Protein backbone atom coordinates (compact mmCIF):
# COMPACT_ATOMS: atom_id res chain seq x y z
CA UNK A 1 0.00 0.00 0.00
CA UNK A 2 2.89 2.33 0.75
CA UNK A 3 4.09 1.65 -2.78
CA UNK A 4 0.79 2.96 -4.11
CA UNK A 5 0.83 6.13 -1.98
CA UNK A 6 4.47 6.88 -2.80
CA UNK A 7 4.04 6.45 -6.51
CA UNK A 8 0.54 7.90 -6.78
CA UNK A 9 1.53 11.15 -8.57
CA UNK A 10 3.47 9.14 -11.13
CA UNK A 11 0.63 6.66 -11.60
CA UNK A 12 -1.86 9.48 -12.11
CA UNK A 13 0.38 11.06 -14.72
CA UNK A 14 0.66 7.72 -16.49
CA UNK A 15 -3.08 7.26 -16.30
CA UNK A 16 -3.66 10.69 -17.81
CA UNK A 17 -1.33 9.94 -20.72
CA UNK A 18 -2.80 6.49 -21.32
CA UNK A 19 -6.31 7.94 -21.40
CA UNK A 20 -5.14 10.75 -23.68
CA UNK A 21 -3.57 8.30 -26.14
CA UNK A 22 -6.49 5.90 -26.05
CA UNK A 23 -9.36 8.37 -26.24
CA UNK A 24 -7.85 10.74 -28.80
CA UNK A 25 -6.74 7.99 -31.15
CA UNK A 26 -10.11 6.25 -30.79
CA UNK A 27 -11.98 9.42 -31.73
CA UNK A 28 -9.66 10.31 -34.62
CA UNK A 29 -9.47 6.67 -35.68
CA UNK A 30 -13.28 6.47 -35.75
CA UNK A 31 -13.51 9.50 -38.03
CA UNK A 32 -10.83 8.18 -40.36
CA UNK A 33 -12.26 4.64 -40.12
CA UNK A 34 -15.73 5.89 -41.05
CA UNK A 35 -14.33 7.63 -44.13
CA UNK A 36 -12.45 4.48 -45.13
CA UNK A 37 -15.60 2.37 -44.62
CA UNK A 38 -17.56 4.76 -46.86
CA UNK A 39 -14.86 4.52 -49.50
CA UNK A 40 -14.91 0.75 -49.18
CA UNK A 41 -18.67 0.48 -49.87
CA UNK A 42 -18.64 3.22 -52.51
CA UNK A 43 -19.35 2.51 -56.15
CA UNK A 44 -16.20 4.36 -57.21
CA UNK A 45 -13.60 1.73 -57.94
CA UNK A 46 -10.57 3.92 -57.15
CA UNK A 47 -11.90 4.75 -53.69
CA UNK A 48 -12.61 1.10 -53.00
CA UNK A 49 -9.10 0.16 -54.04
CA UNK A 50 -7.52 2.80 -51.83
CA UNK A 51 -9.57 1.65 -48.85
CA UNK A 52 -8.59 -1.98 -49.38
CA UNK A 53 -4.90 -1.03 -49.68
CA UNK A 54 -5.06 1.06 -46.52
CA UNK A 55 -6.60 -1.71 -44.43
CA UNK A 56 -4.18 -4.23 -45.86
CA UNK A 57 -1.14 -2.16 -44.83
CA UNK A 58 -2.21 -0.93 -41.40
CA UNK A 59 -3.90 -4.13 -40.30
CA UNK A 60 -1.20 -6.32 -41.79
CA UNK A 61 1.81 -4.85 -40.00
CA UNK A 62 2.58 -4.76 -36.26
CA UNK A 63 1.55 -1.65 -34.38
CA UNK A 64 5.00 -1.56 -32.75
CA UNK A 65 6.64 -1.30 -36.18
CA UNK A 66 4.29 1.55 -37.09
CA UNK A 67 5.10 3.44 -33.88
CA UNK A 68 8.85 2.95 -34.30
CA UNK A 69 8.70 3.94 -37.95
CA UNK A 70 6.87 7.18 -37.18
CA UNK A 71 9.02 8.17 -34.20
CA UNK A 72 12.46 7.03 -35.36
CA UNK A 73 11.96 6.75 -39.11
CA UNK A 74 10.17 9.95 -40.10
CA UNK A 75 12.92 12.31 -38.84
CA UNK A 76 15.05 10.85 -41.65
CA UNK A 77 12.73 12.55 -44.13
CA UNK A 78 12.58 15.71 -42.07
CA UNK A 79 9.39 15.08 -40.10
CA UNK A 80 10.04 15.26 -36.39
CA UNK A 81 7.18 14.50 -34.04
CA UNK A 82 7.26 14.49 -30.25
CA UNK A 83 6.66 11.11 -28.56
CA UNK A 84 3.01 11.68 -27.70
CA UNK A 85 2.11 12.93 -31.19
CA UNK A 86 3.96 10.01 -32.76
CA UNK A 87 2.08 7.54 -30.59
CA UNK A 88 -1.30 9.17 -31.25
CA UNK A 89 -0.63 9.23 -34.99
CA UNK A 90 0.37 5.56 -35.08
CA UNK A 91 -2.52 4.44 -32.87
CA UNK A 92 -5.00 6.47 -34.95
CA UNK A 93 -3.83 5.04 -38.28
CA UNK A 94 -3.82 1.54 -36.81
CA UNK A 95 -7.22 1.82 -35.14
CA UNK A 96 -8.77 3.33 -38.27
CA UNK A 97 -7.95 0.18 -40.26
CA UNK A 98 -9.78 -2.07 -37.80
CA UNK A 99 -12.63 0.35 -37.11
CA UNK A 100 -13.31 0.79 -40.82
CA UNK A 101 -13.94 -2.95 -41.04
CA UNK A 102 -16.23 -2.81 -37.99
CA UNK A 103 -18.19 0.05 -39.58
CA UNK A 104 -18.33 -1.73 -42.92
CA UNK A 105 -19.76 -4.76 -41.17
CA UNK A 106 -22.40 -2.52 -39.65
CA UNK A 107 -23.31 -0.97 -43.01
CA UNK A 108 -23.50 -4.36 -44.73
CA UNK A 109 -25.58 -5.67 -41.83
CA UNK A 110 -28.40 -3.25 -42.65
CA UNK A 111 -31.01 -5.02 -44.75
CA UNK A 112 -30.95 -4.09 -48.44
CA UNK A 113 -34.70 -3.50 -48.16
CA UNK A 114 -33.95 -0.41 -46.07
CA UNK A 115 -32.05 1.16 -48.96
CA UNK A 116 -34.81 0.14 -51.35
CA UNK A 117 -37.58 1.59 -49.19
CA UNK A 118 -35.77 4.93 -49.02
CA UNK A 119 -34.91 4.82 -52.72
CA UNK A 120 -38.51 4.06 -53.62
CA UNK A 121 -39.48 7.35 -51.98
CA UNK A 122 -36.91 9.25 -54.00
CA UNK A 123 -34.64 9.99 -51.05
CA UNK A 124 -31.14 10.97 -52.21
CA UNK A 125 -28.18 8.66 -51.48
CA UNK A 126 -26.51 10.65 -48.72
CA UNK A 127 -29.74 11.44 -46.94
CA UNK A 128 -30.65 7.75 -47.07
CA UNK A 129 -27.29 6.92 -45.63
CA UNK A 130 -27.48 9.49 -42.85
CA UNK A 131 -31.11 9.05 -41.83
CA UNK A 132 -31.81 5.38 -42.52
CA UNK A 133 -28.66 3.30 -42.82
CA UNK A 134 -26.24 4.98 -40.41
CA UNK A 135 -28.43 4.77 -37.27
CA UNK A 136 -28.96 1.05 -37.86
CA UNK A 137 -25.35 0.36 -38.86
CA UNK A 138 -23.95 1.99 -35.75
CA UNK A 139 -26.11 -0.25 -33.57
CA UNK A 140 -24.93 -3.36 -35.39
CA UNK A 141 -21.29 -2.26 -35.16
CA UNK A 142 -21.31 -1.28 -31.47
CA UNK A 143 -20.16 -4.60 -29.93
CA UNK A 144 -17.21 -4.82 -32.33
CA UNK A 145 -16.33 -1.14 -31.97
CA UNK A 146 -16.46 -1.44 -28.17
CA UNK A 147 -14.02 -4.35 -28.29
CA UNK A 148 -11.76 -2.34 -30.53
CA UNK A 149 -11.78 0.58 -28.08
CA UNK A 150 -10.77 -1.76 -25.25
CA UNK A 151 -8.03 -3.35 -27.36
CA UNK A 152 -6.79 0.12 -28.28
CA UNK A 153 -6.57 1.10 -24.59
CA UNK A 154 -4.22 -1.82 -24.05
CA UNK A 155 -2.29 -1.10 -27.25
CA UNK A 156 -1.33 2.32 -25.85
CA UNK A 157 1.22 0.45 -23.70
CA UNK A 158 3.40 0.19 -26.80
CA UNK A 159 3.88 3.98 -26.65
CA UNK A 160 6.26 3.29 -23.74
CA UNK A 161 8.96 2.32 -26.26
CA UNK A 162 9.06 5.86 -27.61
CA UNK A 163 9.40 7.30 -24.10
CA UNK A 164 5.81 8.36 -23.52
CA UNK A 165 5.25 8.27 -19.77
CA UNK A 166 2.05 6.25 -19.84
CA UNK A 167 1.00 3.48 -17.43
CA UNK A 168 3.32 0.76 -18.67
CA UNK A 169 6.36 3.02 -18.57
CA UNK A 170 5.36 4.14 -15.07
CA UNK A 171 5.22 0.49 -13.99
CA UNK A 172 8.69 -0.12 -15.33
CA UNK A 173 10.12 2.93 -13.64
CA UNK A 174 8.49 2.11 -10.28
CA UNK A 175 9.83 -1.41 -10.57
CA UNK A 176 13.35 -0.38 -11.46
CA UNK A 177 13.59 2.26 -8.73
CA UNK A 178 12.14 0.08 -5.92
CA UNK A 179 12.94 -3.41 -7.25
CA UNK A 180 9.33 -4.32 -6.46
CA UNK A 181 8.45 -5.34 -10.02
CA UNK A 182 5.78 -7.79 -8.93
CA UNK A 183 3.71 -5.19 -7.11
CA UNK A 184 4.36 -2.50 -9.73
CA UNK A 185 3.12 -4.54 -12.70
CA UNK A 186 0.26 -5.96 -10.66
CA UNK A 187 -0.82 -2.45 -9.68
CA UNK A 188 -0.67 -1.10 -13.23
CA UNK A 189 -2.37 -4.18 -14.63
CA UNK A 190 -5.24 -3.49 -12.23
CA UNK A 191 -5.49 0.10 -13.46
CA UNK A 192 -5.81 -1.10 -17.09
CA UNK A 193 -8.45 -3.57 -16.00
CA UNK A 194 -10.43 -0.86 -14.21
CA UNK A 195 -10.37 1.41 -17.26
CA UNK A 196 -11.59 -1.36 -19.50
CA UNK A 197 -14.27 -2.47 -17.05
CA UNK A 198 -15.66 1.05 -17.19
CA UNK A 199 -15.54 0.96 -20.99
CA UNK A 200 -17.40 -2.37 -20.99
CA UNK A 201 -20.10 -0.94 -18.77
CA UNK A 202 -20.38 2.09 -21.05
CA UNK A 203 -20.75 -0.23 -24.03
CA UNK A 204 -23.56 -2.19 -22.35
CA UNK A 205 -25.41 1.00 -21.46
CA UNK A 206 -25.08 2.23 -25.04
CA UNK A 207 -26.26 -1.09 -26.46
CA UNK A 208 -29.28 -1.11 -24.19
CA UNK A 209 -30.21 2.45 -25.13
CA UNK A 210 -29.88 1.79 -28.84
CA UNK A 211 -31.78 -1.48 -28.54
CA UNK A 212 -34.81 0.16 -26.95
CA UNK A 213 -36.56 0.81 -30.26
CA UNK A 214 -36.12 -2.85 -31.17
CA UNK A 215 -37.58 -4.33 -27.97
CA UNK A 216 -40.85 -6.16 -28.43
Amino acid at each position, binding site marked *: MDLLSESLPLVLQGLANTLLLGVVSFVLGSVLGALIALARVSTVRVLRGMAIAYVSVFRGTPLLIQILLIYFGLPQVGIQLDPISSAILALTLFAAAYLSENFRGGILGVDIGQWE*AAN*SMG*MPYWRTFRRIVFPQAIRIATPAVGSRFIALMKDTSLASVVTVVELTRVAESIGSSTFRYMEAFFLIGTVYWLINTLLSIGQSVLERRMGRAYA*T
Partner: protein
Amino acid sequence: MSSPLQVHGIRKRLGRTQVLAGVDLTVERGEVVVIMGSSGSGKTTLLRCMNLLETPDEGRVSICGYTVDCHGRSRGRQHRRGVQRARQRTGMVFQQFNLFPHLTALGNVIEGACHARNLPREQATRLGERLLDRVGLADKRDEHPARLSGGQKQRVAIARALAMEPEIVLFDEPTSALDPELHNEVLGVIRELAADGMTMVIVTHETQFAHDVADRIVFMDGGVIVEQSAPETFFTQPTHARARSFLRLVEHQVVAPLPRAPHPAELHQPERA
Protein backbone atom coordinates in the same frame (compact mmCIF):
# COMPACT_ATOMS: atom_id res chain seq x y z
CA MET B 1 -53.71 14.05 -68.81
CA SER B 2 -51.17 11.40 -69.73
CA SER B 3 -51.08 7.97 -68.13
CA PRO B 4 -49.19 7.86 -64.84
CA LEU B 5 -47.36 4.73 -65.93
CA GLN B 6 -46.29 3.32 -69.24
CA VAL B 7 -43.73 0.66 -69.96
CA HIS B 8 -42.80 -0.28 -73.47
CA GLY B 9 -40.76 -3.22 -74.71
CA ILE B 10 -38.88 -3.74 -71.48
CA ARG B 11 -36.48 -6.64 -71.24
CA LYS B 12 -34.46 -7.64 -68.22
CA ARG B 13 -31.94 -10.37 -67.71
CA LEU B 14 -30.79 -11.42 -64.23
CA GLY B 15 -27.77 -13.66 -64.50
CA ARG B 16 -28.59 -16.18 -67.20
CA THR B 17 -32.36 -15.89 -66.96
CA GLN B 18 -34.36 -13.64 -69.23
CA VAL B 19 -36.77 -12.46 -66.52
CA LEU B 20 -38.62 -9.99 -68.72
CA ALA B 21 -38.78 -10.67 -72.43
CA GLY B 22 -40.49 -7.59 -73.82
CA VAL B 23 -43.36 -6.21 -71.77
CA ASP B 24 -45.75 -3.42 -72.75
CA LEU B 25 -48.19 -2.07 -70.21
CA THR B 26 -50.06 1.19 -69.76
CA VAL B 27 -51.89 2.04 -66.55
CA GLU B 28 -54.57 4.71 -66.77
CA ARG B 29 -55.36 7.20 -64.05
CA GLY B 30 -57.64 5.67 -61.43
CA GLU B 31 -57.12 2.18 -62.75
CA VAL B 32 -56.33 -0.85 -60.55
CA VAL B 33 -54.18 -3.38 -62.39
CA VAL B 34 -53.50 -6.72 -60.72
CA ILE B 35 -50.55 -8.72 -61.99
CA MET B 36 -50.77 -12.46 -61.49
CA GLY B 37 -48.62 -15.37 -62.53
CA SER B 38 -46.73 -18.26 -61.04
CA SER B 39 -43.47 -17.59 -59.26
CA GLY B 40 -40.61 -16.85 -61.64
CA SER B 41 -42.95 -15.38 -64.25
CA GLY B 42 -41.35 -11.96 -63.87
CA LYS B 43 -44.17 -10.09 -62.14
CA THR B 44 -42.14 -8.74 -59.22
CA THR B 45 -39.29 -7.73 -61.53
CA LEU B 46 -41.77 -5.93 -63.77
CA LEU B 47 -43.11 -4.04 -60.75
CA ARG B 48 -39.59 -3.11 -59.64
CA CYS B 49 -38.77 -1.89 -63.13
CA MET B 50 -41.76 0.44 -63.00
CA ASN B 51 -40.14 2.74 -60.43
CA LEU B 52 -36.66 1.82 -61.64
CA LEU B 53 -35.56 -0.07 -58.53
CA GLU B 54 -34.38 -2.41 -61.27
CA THR B 55 -33.13 -0.85 -64.47
CA PRO B 56 -34.41 -2.68 -67.54
CA ASP B 57 -31.77 -3.72 -70.07
CA GLU B 58 -33.93 -2.45 -72.90
CA GLY B 59 -37.17 -0.58 -73.32
CA ARG B 60 -38.85 2.58 -72.16
CA VAL B 61 -40.34 3.42 -68.80
CA SER B 62 -42.56 6.44 -68.27
CA ILE B 63 -43.59 7.07 -64.70
CA CYS B 64 -45.19 10.19 -63.25
CA GLY B 65 -43.93 12.37 -66.06
CA TYR B 66 -40.38 11.03 -66.23
CA THR B 67 -39.42 9.00 -69.26
CA VAL B 68 -36.27 6.97 -69.61
CA ASP B 69 -35.03 4.92 -72.52
CA CYS B 70 -32.98 2.06 -71.21
CA HIS B 71 -30.05 0.55 -73.04
CA GLY B 72 -27.92 -0.99 -70.33
CA ARG B 73 -25.49 1.90 -69.84
CA SER B 74 -25.14 3.72 -66.55
CA ARG B 75 -26.37 7.27 -66.45
CA GLY B 76 -25.46 10.53 -64.84
CA ARG B 77 -26.80 12.96 -62.33
CA GLN B 78 -29.64 14.22 -64.50
CA HIS B 79 -31.06 10.71 -64.72
CA ARG B 80 -30.78 10.24 -60.95
CA ARG B 81 -32.65 13.48 -60.34
CA GLY B 82 -35.35 12.48 -62.79
CA VAL B 83 -35.79 9.11 -61.15
CA GLN B 84 -35.89 10.70 -57.70
CA ARG B 85 -38.55 13.18 -58.72
CA ALA B 86 -40.68 10.45 -60.27
CA ARG B 87 -40.34 8.26 -57.19
CA GLN B 88 -41.41 11.16 -54.99
CA ARG B 89 -44.79 10.87 -56.68
CA THR B 90 -44.91 7.07 -56.49
CA GLY B 91 -45.70 4.89 -53.51
CA MET B 92 -44.28 1.42 -53.06
CA VAL B 93 -45.35 -1.30 -50.64
CA PHE B 94 -42.97 -4.23 -50.19
CA GLN B 95 -43.59 -7.86 -49.41
CA GLN B 96 -41.29 -7.65 -46.38
CA PHE B 97 -42.67 -4.23 -45.30
CA ASN B 98 -39.18 -2.69 -45.07
CA LEU B 99 -40.24 -0.36 -42.29
CA PHE B 100 -37.45 1.66 -40.70
CA PRO B 101 -36.95 -0.11 -37.34
CA HIS B 102 -35.33 2.86 -35.61
CA LEU B 103 -38.30 5.15 -36.25
CA THR B 104 -41.79 5.13 -34.73
CA ALA B 105 -44.88 4.39 -36.82
CA LEU B 106 -45.42 8.09 -37.36
CA GLY B 107 -41.71 8.60 -38.01
CA ASN B 108 -41.87 5.95 -40.72
CA VAL B 109 -44.89 7.55 -42.34
CA ILE B 110 -43.50 11.08 -42.46
CA GLU B 111 -39.89 10.18 -43.29
CA GLY B 112 -40.39 10.41 -47.03
CA ALA B 113 -42.68 13.42 -46.76
CA CYS B 114 -40.06 15.30 -44.71
CA HIS B 115 -36.83 14.09 -46.25
CA ALA B 116 -37.66 13.25 -49.84
CA ARG B 117 -40.50 15.67 -50.59
CA ASN B 118 -39.18 18.25 -48.13
CA LEU B 119 -42.55 19.12 -46.62
CA PRO B 120 -42.36 21.20 -43.44
CA ARG B 121 -42.36 18.90 -40.41
CA GLU B 122 -45.62 20.22 -39.02
CA GLN B 123 -47.48 19.69 -42.27
CA ALA B 124 -45.95 16.22 -42.66
CA THR B 125 -46.98 15.31 -39.12
CA ARG B 126 -50.59 16.33 -39.75
CA LEU B 127 -50.56 14.31 -42.96
CA GLY B 128 -48.96 11.33 -41.18
CA GLU B 129 -51.51 11.36 -38.37
CA ARG B 130 -54.36 11.50 -40.85
CA LEU B 131 -52.92 8.57 -42.80
CA LEU B 132 -52.32 6.45 -39.69
CA ASP B 133 -55.92 7.11 -38.78
CA ARG B 134 -56.99 6.08 -42.26
CA VAL B 135 -55.28 2.68 -41.91
CA GLY B 136 -56.73 2.31 -38.41
CA LEU B 137 -53.50 2.76 -36.45
CA ALA B 138 -53.83 6.23 -34.94
CA ASP B 139 -53.20 4.74 -31.48
CA LYS B 140 -49.88 3.21 -32.60
CA ARG B 141 -48.28 6.45 -33.74
CA ASP B 142 -45.44 6.30 -31.19
CA GLU B 143 -44.76 2.56 -31.34
CA HIS B 144 -41.68 1.18 -33.06
CA PRO B 145 -42.16 -1.50 -35.75
CA ALA B 146 -40.83 -4.22 -33.43
CA ARG B 147 -43.96 -3.87 -31.32
CA LEU B 148 -46.41 -4.11 -34.22
CA SER B 149 -47.96 -7.25 -35.70
CA GLY B 150 -47.24 -8.13 -39.32
CA GLY B 151 -50.58 -6.77 -40.45
CA GLN B 152 -50.04 -3.54 -38.55
CA LYS B 153 -46.55 -3.18 -40.04
CA GLN B 154 -47.91 -3.54 -43.55
CA ARG B 155 -50.63 -0.99 -42.83
CA VAL B 156 -47.99 1.47 -41.59
CA ALA B 157 -46.06 0.74 -44.79
CA ILE B 158 -49.16 1.58 -46.83
CA ALA B 159 -49.59 4.83 -44.90
CA ARG B 160 -45.92 5.56 -45.60
CA ALA B 161 -46.50 5.04 -49.32
CA LEU B 162 -49.55 7.29 -49.21
CA ALA B 163 -47.53 10.03 -47.49
CA MET B 164 -45.84 10.58 -50.83
CA GLU B 165 -49.30 11.76 -51.97
CA PRO B 166 -48.61 9.50 -54.92
CA GLU B 167 -50.09 9.44 -58.39
CA ILE B 168 -49.68 5.68 -58.35
CA VAL B 169 -48.97 3.04 -55.71
CA LEU B 170 -47.12 -0.19 -56.47
CA PHE B 171 -47.75 -3.24 -54.26
CA ASP B 172 -45.34 -6.17 -54.32
CA GLU B 173 -47.20 -9.16 -52.83
CA PRO B 174 -48.38 -7.14 -49.84
CA THR B 175 -49.80 -10.13 -47.94
CA SER B 176 -47.32 -12.88 -48.82
CA ALA B 177 -45.26 -12.45 -45.66
CA LEU B 178 -48.29 -12.43 -43.39
CA ASP B 179 -50.11 -15.16 -41.51
CA PRO B 180 -53.41 -15.94 -43.27
CA GLU B 181 -55.55 -14.46 -40.52
CA LEU B 182 -53.84 -11.08 -41.02
CA HIS B 183 -54.45 -10.86 -44.77
CA ASN B 184 -57.83 -9.22 -44.57
CA GLU B 185 -56.81 -6.22 -42.48
CA VAL B 186 -54.27 -5.32 -45.18
CA LEU B 187 -56.47 -6.19 -48.15
CA GLY B 188 -59.30 -4.18 -46.57
CA VAL B 189 -57.13 -1.05 -46.60
CA ILE B 190 -56.22 -1.61 -50.26
CA ARG B 191 -59.89 -2.18 -51.14
CA GLU B 192 -60.70 1.20 -49.62
CA LEU B 193 -57.96 2.85 -51.65
CA ALA B 194 -59.40 1.28 -54.79
CA ALA B 195 -62.84 2.59 -53.88
CA ASP B 196 -61.31 6.06 -53.50
CA GLY B 197 -59.99 5.88 -57.05
CA MET B 198 -56.29 5.46 -56.30
CA THR B 199 -54.23 4.29 -59.27
CA MET B 200 -52.56 1.03 -58.28
CA VAL B 201 -50.54 -1.85 -59.64
CA ILE B 202 -50.74 -4.89 -57.38
CA VAL B 203 -48.79 -8.12 -57.61
CA THR B 204 -50.69 -10.70 -55.60
CA HIS B 205 -51.78 -14.32 -55.38
CA GLU B 206 -55.05 -13.45 -53.66
CA THR B 207 -57.58 -14.42 -56.32
CA GLN B 208 -60.71 -13.36 -54.46
CA PHE B 209 -59.21 -9.98 -53.72
CA ALA B 210 -57.97 -9.61 -57.30
CA HIS B 211 -61.39 -10.52 -58.59
CA ASP B 212 -63.05 -7.87 -56.43
CA VAL B 213 -60.60 -5.01 -56.69
CA ALA B 214 -59.06 -5.15 -60.17
CA ASP B 215 -60.18 -3.23 -63.22
CA ARG B 216 -57.84 -5.39 -65.23
CA ILE B 217 -55.93 -8.60 -64.58
CA VAL B 218 -52.57 -8.98 -66.24
CA PHE B 219 -51.34 -12.57 -66.37
CA MET B 220 -47.63 -13.15 -66.90
CA ASP B 221 -45.72 -16.24 -67.88
CA GLY B 222 -42.10 -16.65 -68.91
CA GLY B 223 -41.36 -12.93 -68.76
CA VAL B 224 -44.18 -11.80 -71.03
CA ILE B 225 -47.81 -10.82 -70.60
CA VAL B 226 -49.80 -13.71 -72.03
CA GLU B 227 -53.26 -12.53 -71.17
CA GLN B 228 -54.98 -9.41 -69.91
CA SER B 229 -58.66 -8.94 -69.39
CA ALA B 230 -61.36 -7.76 -67.01
CA PRO B 231 -61.51 -9.93 -63.87
CA GLU B 232 -64.89 -11.43 -64.79
CA THR B 233 -63.49 -12.64 -68.07
CA PHE B 234 -60.17 -13.73 -66.65
CA PHE B 235 -61.57 -15.83 -63.84
CA THR B 236 -64.44 -17.38 -65.80
CA GLN B 237 -63.05 -17.87 -69.29
CA PRO B 238 -59.25 -17.56 -69.40
CA THR B 239 -58.00 -18.10 -72.93
CA HIS B 240 -54.37 -19.01 -72.38
CA ALA B 241 -53.51 -22.56 -71.34
CA ARG B 242 -51.07 -21.38 -68.66
CA ALA B 243 -53.67 -19.05 -67.19
CA ARG B 244 -56.14 -21.93 -67.03
CA SER B 245 -53.71 -24.24 -65.26
CA PHE B 246 -52.62 -21.44 -62.90
CA LEU B 247 -56.23 -20.76 -61.96
CA ARG B 248 -56.88 -24.44 -61.39
CA LEU B 249 -53.97 -24.45 -58.94
CA VAL B 250 -54.94 -21.39 -56.92
CA GLU B 251 -58.67 -21.07 -57.35
CA HIS B 252 -59.75 -24.00 -55.25
CA GLN B 253 -57.81 -22.64 -52.33
CA VAL B 254 -59.40 -19.24 -52.26
CA VAL B 255 -62.44 -18.60 -54.40
CA ALA B 256 -64.29 -21.78 -53.55
CA PRO B 257 -65.60 -21.92 -49.96
CA LEU B 258 -63.25 -23.79 -47.69
CA PRO B 259 -64.34 -27.15 -46.33
CA ARG B 260 -65.00 -27.11 -42.61
CA ALA B 261 -61.76 -27.70 -40.75
CA PRO B 262 -61.90 -30.83 -38.59
CA HIS B 263 -62.03 -30.27 -34.88
CA PRO B 264 -58.69 -31.19 -33.24
CA ALA B 265 -60.47 -33.86 -31.24
CA GLU B 266 -61.60 -35.54 -34.43
CA LEU B 267 -58.04 -35.84 -35.62
CA HIS B 268 -57.09 -37.92 -32.65
CA GLN B 269 -59.97 -40.37 -32.80
CA PRO B 270 -58.50 -43.85 -32.88
CA GLU B 271 -59.35 -45.46 -36.17
CA ARG B 272 -61.71 -48.36 -35.95
CA ALA B 273 -62.21 -50.92 -38.58
